[in-house]
């Protein structure tokens, strides 16, 4: 290539501006060089693969929801009609109406809201305290205590099902008869074979779950403590040190400095606690008998007013159960659409480092 020949031509356009004419490669050539090569091709392929893979997985996740929603609007005739599979032919709201009225949906909704709301707030706050304690303070037995937290996670629920029920069925209070002493005296009691102490029956009340939440022992609280501990470990120590220098106490620093900056993480934990308590059927089956308050698990049944005995019975019953599921999930879905932004933020900022 001759450099002298391809030197740019400069022409004076007006008094203050000049125009430079470069001898550029034609547009087509430039585009070719940019797009028709192995690297670009590879990039596009990888990108397409990524996108399609994510799309496929999203389909797998969302399809069951779609099929549930579609079947919830189907009328009984649609289940015997083989040509109807995904779009209801005779859309109806009778299933929803029957469940809401016959199964007392709103009562269950209110009860579960009170229970889940209070438990989730308590759990978030208590786990936050505990997680902060583990993350930022080096006291003796820190790692041993944290091992105990992991231990509470590892024990399978059914292992403790019976003794948990017994603990709250025969919950004893009063000086000297706190559970720890009761346990120590338990060996003596066995010879008599009967527990004579007065006890408190907490079954069918919200107290067992509240007590468990307040002590960080409720469902998956070990996980929350772990998540929050990792989050607080990522918060730079300098923040607190400067607060201490300005004369702020440990708890004040926690409330005024640490809590405000961990709001996204707190919302994440709250969402977990709330949703898992909302759809929980393990603890509710342990602590609540049939005569207890109406909670969500109890509304999953076929409403009285719907007649299900016909050819498509199995399908219809399944659809009704799914509709109950949708009604249970609906509040959570609405909550999730609002909170989703914070959850992603919470994840991005948590910076868990093993």
């Amino acid at each position, binding site marked *: 290539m001759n450099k002298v020949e391809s030197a740019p031509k400069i022409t004076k356009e007006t008094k203050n501006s000049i125009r430079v004419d470069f001898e550029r490669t034609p547009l087509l050539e430039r585009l070719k060089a940019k797009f028709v090569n192995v690297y670009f091709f590879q990039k596009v392929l990888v990108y397409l693969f990524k996108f399609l893979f994510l799309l496929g997985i999203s389909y797998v996740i969302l*399809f069951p929801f779609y099929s549930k929603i579609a079947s919830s609007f189907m009328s009984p005739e649609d289940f015997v009609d083989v040509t109807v599979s995904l779009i209801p032919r005779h859309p109806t709201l009778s299933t929803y109406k029957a469940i809401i009225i016959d199964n007392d949906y709103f009562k269950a909704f209110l009860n579960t809201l009170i229970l889940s709301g209070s438990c989730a707030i308590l759990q978030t706050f208590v786990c936050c305290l505990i997680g902060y304690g583990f993350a930022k303070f080096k006291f003796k037995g820190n790692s041993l205590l944290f091992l105990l937290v992991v231990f509470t996670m*590892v024990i399978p629920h059914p292992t403790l099902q019976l003794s948990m029920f017994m603990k709250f069925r025969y919950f004893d209070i009063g000086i000297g008869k706190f559970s720890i002493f009761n346990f120590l005296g338990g060996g003596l009691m066995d010879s008599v074979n009967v527990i004579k102490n007065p006890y408190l029956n907490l079954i069918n009340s919200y107290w067992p779950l509240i007590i468990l939440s307040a002590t960080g022992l409720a469902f998956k609280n070990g996980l929350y403590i772990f998540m929050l501990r990792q989050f607080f470990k990522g918060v730079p120590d300098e923040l607190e040190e400067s607060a201490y220098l300005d004369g702020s106490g440990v708890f004040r620093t926690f409330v005024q400095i640490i809590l405000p900056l961990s709001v996204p993480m707190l919302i994440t934990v709250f969402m977990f606690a709330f949703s898992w308590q909302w759809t929980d059927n393990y603890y509710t089956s342990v602590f609540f008998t049939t005569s207890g308050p109406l909670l969500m698990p109890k509304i999953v049944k076929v409403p009285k007013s719907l007649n299900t005995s016909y050819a498509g019975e199995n399908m219809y019953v399944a659809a009704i159960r*799914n509709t109950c599921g949708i009604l249970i999930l609906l509040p959570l879905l609405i909550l999730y659409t609002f909170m989703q932004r914070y959850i992603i933020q919470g*994840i991005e900022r948590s910076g868990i480092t093993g």
Partner: protein
Amino acid sequence: MNAAKSKNDDILGGSVKKKKRGASLDVRKARAGWWFVLPFIIGFLILYLPIVFDSIKYSFHEIRILTGGGFKLEWVGLQNYSDALFVDPSFVQTLTTGIRQLIIDIPAIVIFALFVAILLNGKVAGRAAFRAIFFIPVLLTTGLIADIDNANILMDSMESSEIDTGAGTNTVSEIVSVMDVQALFSNMMIGTELVEYVVNLVNNIFNIINRSGVQMLIFLSGLQSISPSIYESCSIDGASGWETFWKITLPMVSPMILVNTVYTVIDSFTSSSNSVMSYISRVYQQANGQVLSSAMSWMYFLIVMLIIAVVAAILSAFVFYQRRD
């Protein structure tokens, strides 16, 4: 300053003030640490520990609820354990098949979670929407909803291309059939077991997605914490994406792999949907089955602990920590 300090002491709750004044900041902070974890300590000591010990105690007893209130315990020694192992017809079998199934599932879940987390961390159109969708199962398809889904014939029949008679029985929905994949892999020198493994995974994909939500979350936050400058210097030195993954991403997330594997083991061994768990809770509902079920679950627990110890020991040899402090 002085006032602040004494206020600090007050908050830390000390009766002996003179002694406190001499305590260094570290000591005072350590004391405050105890206050923070106090709820857990109280709960663990007066609630959880007795419950655990009671459970062990009950597993050695026969239990009767008395009509007048209260209950009666009869010492039977190891009888519940021997009943579970030798008298109960299907406990041992359920245990072995269940554990084998879980050992197969666990690597799949961890690898899938890592893979998706890397995809969700990169630049893809609609990333925010994908992230929102991927966390739906963790939050929503648990407990009650999972129970409804387990007994669900409707979704199966909707997914299958076969025409259902309406009776809704025996319609198996498979995304990929074993035959297709076997045809695909027949030319490669891969054992049939591996092929079946892959087919199982593909057909269980919904299950795996449901169970890998929290792991995805932990991986994602781990990936976020890797400094972008490392990747930048890598690409300047001419490393390909493949090399970057093996030399940078994998070592950097290896602590998370350990955490996630242990979590997956715990989560899948204690989830109510696995066969051993549902068997134990079925036994619990039987007449006089409560103590038998707690004996069973204690044995199960010991096995789980053993597996966790083995897994953690193997994996921790490969974990790379960036900071050694």
